[in-house]
């Protein structure tokens, strides 16, 4: 099979765009990614479009109605918070399989404000607050408290994740926020679901990101290898059976399974990774994934955040974009936005937040239900 390369990739600055439609928001990133590699919509042989909020709304086709109706096949993808990464992976797979040699992947979302999860009852009575909480801050708080029961992880350690990621975002002009949040401010913010305060919850924003993927032959023909990013691994996993996972969504086993497969496919280990964009939908979640992705031993995640090893300038910087906590989390766009972030560092184009000398990076998203997608990326050449 051919190798597949990202030749163009970009994202819009995340924000709130109530006056735009979902296809219009997606079209912006699509055009930016095409411009990034100097190609046009006429060069694309297929479109893989990720969106969750209008999953039945033919968003990909409506986006082409904004930027060029070339008649190419369109696949609309929905896979919870792994939606964008899944669309990217489908695009990658079509190139790997030799079906196409130049395709477009787009992730886009327009979010409301407020809590996610815990939908109302269609029959009977509402269960939220009666049988525990199905809200996302509570579900991820419970996952964090499982780590606390095993290893004594503290509220303060969880909060430090948010301090770090908000600091990183001050260096990222495309993040929703560029605001420092000191530890006492994070810990004293409104408690949403202990131990997650408001500043430890990801930001609901609108956004889009897109990538153009080519076969090796096509990328060379087009003279695009100079800034190309090789996709060394693309893995998608669902949740393997765990004893509690039907009442307590298990983000750990799903991530560990995907990580093991991704490292094997890429032929690298956690020590070879120079930066990671992982799914910090809540501060509690990021702590879990240090161990799930193997960048430290089980039980060491608290020390990792205490010692600054995962901060910009540390041993293995995590979420230098600001992460979902501060860059923002437009569900369907997130998976491609973190691929954009890692690609930008591998190209050496990340400005003030550049991870110096970055050669290999990893992206991770997890959607409850559950779906985990991991990509290992490397600068071509």
């Amino acid at each position, binding site marked *: 099979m051919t190798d597949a390369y990202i030749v163009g990739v970009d994202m819009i600055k995340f924000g709130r765009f109530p006056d735009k439609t979902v296809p219009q928001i997606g079209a912006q990133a699509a055009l930016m990614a095409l411009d990034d590699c100097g190609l046009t919509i006429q060069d694309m042989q297929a479109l893989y479009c990720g969106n969750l909020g209008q999953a039945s709304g033919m968003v990909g086709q409506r986006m082409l109605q904004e930027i060029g109706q070339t008649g190419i096949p369109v696949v609309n993808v929905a896979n919870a918070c792994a939606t964008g990464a899944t669309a990217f992976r489908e695009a990658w797979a079509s190139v790997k399989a030799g079906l196409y040699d130049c395709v477009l992947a787009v992730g886009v979302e327009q979010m409301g404000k407020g809590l996610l999860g815990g939908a109302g009852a269609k029959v009977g009575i509402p269960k939220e607050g009666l049988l525990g909480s199905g809200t996302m801050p*509570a579900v991820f708080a419970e996952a964090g408290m499982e780590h606390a029961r095993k290893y004594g992880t503290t509220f303060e350690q969880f909060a430090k994740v948010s301090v770090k990621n908000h600091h990183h975002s001050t260096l990222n002009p495309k993040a929703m926020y560029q605001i420092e949040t000191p530890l006492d401010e994070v810990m004293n913010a409104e408690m949403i679901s*202990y131990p997650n305060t408001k500043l430890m919850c990801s930001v609901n924003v609108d956004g889009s990101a897109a990538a153009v993927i080519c076969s090796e032959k096509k990328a060379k023909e087009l003279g695009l290898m100079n800034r190309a990013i090789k996709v060394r691994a693309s893995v998608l996993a669902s949740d393997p059976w765990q004893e509690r996972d039907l009442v307590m969504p298990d983000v750990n086993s799903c991530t560990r399974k995907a990580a093991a497969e991704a490292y094997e496919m890429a032929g690298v280990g956690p020590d070879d990774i120079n930066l990671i964009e992982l799914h910090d939908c809540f501060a509690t979640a990021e702590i879990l994934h240090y161990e799930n992705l193997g960048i430290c031993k089980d039980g060491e995640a608290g020390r990792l955040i205490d010692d600054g090893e995962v901060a910009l300038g540390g041993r293995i910087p995590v979420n230098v974009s600001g992460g979902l906590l501060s860059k923002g989390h437009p569900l369907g766009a997130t998976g491609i936005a973190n691929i954009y972030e890692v690609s930008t560092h591998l190209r050496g184009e990340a400005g003030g937040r550049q991870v110096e000398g970055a050669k290999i990076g990893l992206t991770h998203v997890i959607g409850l239900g559950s779906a985990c997608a991991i990509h290992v990326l490397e600068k071509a050449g």
Partner: protein
Amino acid sequence: MSDKPLAAVEYLKIPNDGEPYLEGYKCGDCSATFLGERSVCSKCGARDQMSAVTLPNTGKLYSYSIVYRSFPGIEVPYVSAIVDLDDGTAIKGNLINVDPDPDSISFDMPVEVVYADALGRKDADGNAYLSYFFQPAATA
């Protein structure tokens, strides 16, 4: 409208003559237990090996969150809890009769299942519901 309370969830059983109880389904091949009726085991894939079991009313607190922000009309704070029942079945619900404070809640604290009205919630037809809750187990 029913003259007796209805069950808030399908796996809560209310016999005509006897106490309410929680019902699980256990796989005859791999022994995994699940809340509620099913015919195929999602652990091992065995078909038609499931049989109903009455779940124990005691267990231990596995994990929790104290919820301060919920949807409009939902009273806060409350403790959302994951409990391991004594037979190993995991179940989620509200932990009641405890201060909603991390200092008052400890992992593995023994809890018991109690059955009570579903916080006054009624459906569109005006039916009342019976639900289950966890509370710290009475010390012997």
